[in-house]
């Protein structure tokens, strides 16, 4: 069981951490506390885990409920399908430029509709594969693949629009 749980832990720790991290305002300490609690819950319930359910979907559900409880206890209304991106790294010119590019992507991502944002976030930021996404979202992997490609296309358009708007502002 321990070996089984270890494999489960290795497969999911990064993705669950990112899921939490983007929903707590990129607060690393808070994310670590919450992820610890989530995996402790999973560890205690691992013996009762139903193998017919995808493990990724199982831990995702635990994480989602845990975050919902956390925000409810603090009387905070947070959209768990939304994410909060903040620039990372604060040293030197190069880092500033990188922050700028990251900010552009983050802003464009916020402008996508909820479903598109969720797909792009799950696939490219949290790091889920289409099969896992299908188990979590409850749609087929093929459908999600097409929908994600479309969402990325819209993200691209959104970035171009954002950059054009910024350039025209600078010219004025």
């Amino acid at each position: 069981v321990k070996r089984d749980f270890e494999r489960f832990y290795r497969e999911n720790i990064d993705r669950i951490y990112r899921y939490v991290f983007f929903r707590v305002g990129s607060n690393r300490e808070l994310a670590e506390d919450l992820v610890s609690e989530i995996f402790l819950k999973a560890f205690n319930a691992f013996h009762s885990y139903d193998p017919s359910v995808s493990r990724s979907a199982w831990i995702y559900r635990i994480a989602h409920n845990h975050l919902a409880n956390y925000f409810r206890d603090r009387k905070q209304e947070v959209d768990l399908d939304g994410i909060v991106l903040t620039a990372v790294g604060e040293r030197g010119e190069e880092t500033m430029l990188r922050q700028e590019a990251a900010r552009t992507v983050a802003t464009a991502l916020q402008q996508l509709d909820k479903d598109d944002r969720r797909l792009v976030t799950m696939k490219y930021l949290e790091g889920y594969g289409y099969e896992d996404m299908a188990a979590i979202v409850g749609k087929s992997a093929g459908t999600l693949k097409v929908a994600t490609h479309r969402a990325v296309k819209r993200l691209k358009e959104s970035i171009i629009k954002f950059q054009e708007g910024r350039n025209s502002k600078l010219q004025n």
Partner: protein
Amino acid sequence: LKAFTPSWILKLSALILPDFMSVLWLQLRKLRRAASPSREFKAALWRQLAPAPAVGLRLPRMFAVGIASIVLLFGMGTGVYAYGSPDVTEGHPLYSVKQGIENVEGRLAFSEEQKLRHQRKMVRRRIIEALRHADSPEQVERILWRVPPEKRERIIEFINLRRQQLQSPQSP
């Protein structure tokens, strides 16, 4: 401008200059990496979830590893000594170890040339051993028992000469 630019320059620039999508993937990957848990956190959480087995359970393995290491080291040292020392001859407790190593060495000689080389080496080793025990004719005889008969007589003559040299007071 594109119409007047040679196609090879366009192809080259497409290879060198990053296109929009690759920049977008890069930014998403950077965001993902920035939102990943640290190794220290992952290791600490794993330790918390699956603590090491109790000392009582760990000790036998620790002992087993320690004993195996000692036996291996001791065995290796003993083997090296037995193989290298001319003092280890018939009647010595480590003689069987030496014989075993020499036999293995002989089996690893596949070609005729290698076999001949091994035979010569063994004769040289027997001569050195016999010289070491030159004061005991019985021991010399036992040592040279393993030397091919056609060479044995000449070696015995040589050993006798050496013995006489050792016994005479003018010997160097």
